[in-house]
């Protein structure tokens, strides 16, 4: 077997690493227009030019210091797992800040190839970058690419393969000012006496002068630490700034010099619509009007489209039933197959799919345009009341699709405390499964206004829980620092791919669960087990004012929330729920399923990120909370 080469994709946030990763490996990494989507390294394989290559997509970072988890993930991977090659993906329209990162990568002394991505944006600005010259100045190969149009990737890959085959590549070098360089030299020399350094000496020396906390804790020699102290104090005296500021400034000075040398203005820039759009989207009054109208618009589009489609698919399937019933098989088996398996599949297609498909499509469009970052901007002030900053709103919106990626995505927050708050709030956000219940049950049978009312109740609940969490979880709130991506025309290929990735999850993961659970349930009915279960649950049913059959579905709902509605249909042999539930019951059922417990996948995600205790506490807390609120709602609805 041939050797498998490892190629890492590194670079700043939101430059196009995951688009390139998906193109090269056929992977399904989340892509969107805001910084910080990829939070964990992901890998995929490809065979090119007779080589087997493992490609690793790393989280986007701005620096190789160790102030955030993503930075540590990327730095450790590059330094310790020794990829054969690192491709630094650069946003060519933002050259200085991207070179700032590249220089640190070069200090790690790994073989590097530079991809000048988003080159279309450079051209729109009327600029040109001399890749030849850039390559000479850096001492590294440079290739222009436009990832979304699949341009330049072939050339990029050719260069990668050539380097892997040859087994060597220039590593480039950056020189800083005299005062800094001389101190780096002294320090590197002193480092020679230490054994088994984890990083190149120059890198360590620079990071020590930058006062990188992790590096300080890794160097055990007090002699060296004392030397570092002397050296950085000298630097601070010469420049009158903190030594980290001195080094960052020097790095940026080199970056500006190079950027200036390679960029030329060719023609007038095309008018950039992004700034014009922002005048409305970020306006302190119209911005909110736009946000609320957009939310309502999405609500009605998904509802109208979904209920129309749902009716159509439902009646299509019901045409099948007479044919099936003609078949010559024993009646109990026939019921098990039809009511259990087939009704389950039908429900998946007729009740669930019509709502989640348009919803996912709209979510992907929002993600790719860059509007999510605007929402983070607009809600920053509000979110501070919950002890987190505006970026927290991005995972919360993702959560409308599914809570699980939202809990992972909470890593856009810099600190553990913020991540915990955001993740707990995310479990209360109605994901697409719950949307199905609200739309398919509440909106269809009570009217859209009642559905909105349930949402409003839920948002108030989230806000209150947020206030409480902020008050009782130790730690202090932090502020927002976020690069605002430009608005972009959504790329349809990217959007459809993303929608499909999410839908696939539904077909491959949710459908089997739905069908299996439905068969189990039908079996329980046939074996007459339902009676004892209902009587055991009757206190809860009475407390919530729900029929006991509906309460049973709540148990299965822990697996997947849509199951509650699907089973209701199986139980009552109808999708006309108005016949079997009173309007009050529909409302209470909708509200309780929305919040009563996170589904198993969400509980597992909580456990993975925060440990058993958090997962258990959140589940129990939400269960009790939902029961109490549901009971209260029942009481109120009875009185009025």
């Amino acid at each position, binding site marked *: 077997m041939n050797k498998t080469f490892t190629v890492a994709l590194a670079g700043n946030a939101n430059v196009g690493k995951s688009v390139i990763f998906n193109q090269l490996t056929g992977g399904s990494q989340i892509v969107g227009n805001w910084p910080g989507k990829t939070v964990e390294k992901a890998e995929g394989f490809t065979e090119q030019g007779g080589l087997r290559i493992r490609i690793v997509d790393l989280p986007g970072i*701005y*620096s190789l*210091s160790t*102030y955030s988890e993503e930075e540590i993930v990327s730095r450790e991977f590059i330094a310790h797992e020794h990829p054969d090659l690192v491709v630094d993906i650069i946003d060519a329209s*933002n050259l*200085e*800040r991207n070179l*700032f990162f590249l220089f640190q990568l070069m200090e790690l002394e790994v073989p590097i190839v530079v991809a000048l991505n988003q080159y279309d944006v450079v051209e729109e600005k009327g600029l040109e970058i001399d890749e030849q010259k850039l390559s000479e100045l850096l001492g590294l190969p440079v290739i222009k690419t436009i990832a979304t149009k699949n341009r330049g990737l072939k050339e990029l890959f050719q260069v990668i393969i050539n380097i892997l085959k040859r087994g060597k590549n220039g590593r480039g070098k950056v020189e800083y000012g005299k005062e800094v360089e001389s101190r780096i030299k002294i320090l590197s020399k002193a480092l020679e006496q230490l054994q088994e350094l984890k990083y190149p000496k120059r890198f360590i020396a620079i990071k020590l002068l930058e006062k990188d906390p992790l590096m300080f804790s890794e160097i055990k020699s007090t002699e060296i630490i004392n030397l570092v102290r002397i050296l950085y104090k000298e630097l601070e005296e010469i420049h009158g*700034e903190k030594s*980290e*500021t001195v080094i*960052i*400034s020097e790095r*940026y000075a080199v970056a500006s010099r190079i950027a200036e040398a390679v960029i030329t203005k060719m023609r007038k820039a095309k008018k950039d619509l992004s700034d014009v759009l*922002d005048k409305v989207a*970020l306006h*302190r009054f119209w911005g909110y009007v736009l946000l609320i109208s957009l939310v309502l618009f999405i609500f009605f589009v998904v509802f109208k489209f979904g209920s129309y489609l749902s009716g159509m698919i439902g009646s299509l399937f019901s045409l099948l039933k007479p044919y099936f019933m003609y078949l010559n098989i024993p009646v109990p088996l026939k019921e098990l197959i039809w009511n259990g398996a087939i009704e389950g599949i039908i429900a998946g297609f007729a009740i669930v799919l019509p709502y989640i498909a348009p919803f996912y499509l709209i979510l992907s469009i929002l993600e790719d345009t860059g509007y999510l*970052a605007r929402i*983070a*901007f*607009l809600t*920053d*002030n509000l979110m*501070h*009341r919950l*002890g987190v*900053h*505006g970026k927290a709103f991005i995972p919360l919106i993702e959560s409308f699709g599914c809570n699980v990626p939202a809990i992972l995505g909470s890593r856009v927050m*810099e*600190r553990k405390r913020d991540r915990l708050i955001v993740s707990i709030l995310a479990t209360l956000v109605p994901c697409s499964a719950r949307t199905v219940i609200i739309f398919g049950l509440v909106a269809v049978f009570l009217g859209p206004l009642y559905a909105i009312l349930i949402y409003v109740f839920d948002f108030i609940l989230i806000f209150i829980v947020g206030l409480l969490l902020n008050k009782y979880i*130790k*730690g*202090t*709130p*932090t*502020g*927002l*620092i*976020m*690069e*605002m991506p*430009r608005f972009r025309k959504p790329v349809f290929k990217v959007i459809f791919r993303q929608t499909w990735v999410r839908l696939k999850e539904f077909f491959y993961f949710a459908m089997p669960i739905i069908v299996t659970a439905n068969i189990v349930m039908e079996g329980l009915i046939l074996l007459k087990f339902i009676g004892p279960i209902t009587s055991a649950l009757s206190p809860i049913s009475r407390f919530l004012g729900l029929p006991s059959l509906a309460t049973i579905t709540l148990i299965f709902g822990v697996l997947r929330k849509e199951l509650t509605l699907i089973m209701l249909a199986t139980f009552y042999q109808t999708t006309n729920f108005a016949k079997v539930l009173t309007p009050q019951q529909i409302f209470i059922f909708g509200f309780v399923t929305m919040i009563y417990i996170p589904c198993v996948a969400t509980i597992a995600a909580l456990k993975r990120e925060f440990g058993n205790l958090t997962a258990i506490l959140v589940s129990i807390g939400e269960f009790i909370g939902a029961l109490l609120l549901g009971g209260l709602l029942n009481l109120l609805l009875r009185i009025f």
Partner: protein
Amino acid sequence: MESKKILSSIVQGKKVKVVGFDYHMGLFSRHHHRLLRLHEANDLERHGVFFTRRLQEMGILPGEIIEVLRNGNIGPVEVIVKNSHLAIGRGIASRIYVEEIDE
């Protein structure tokens, strides 16, 4: 020489020069009114370092000229630095010292 101002007080449309940061008080949220406990004070100190560091890595460096693109009375401040847009929460923006420059 003009006097030192804080970034959050600059009217939108103006260009300013960054002169420094408030390193010691890392109190970055405006809605944080209660008294600090000891461990929180340490926490803040560390995060003060973290945020000033992150700002500098994004190009908000002493001497840098930045343009205030958006600044309402509430919400974050949006600035243009090194040709790209950066949103900075109000609490943090009130700990960045700047000087107005004449054009």
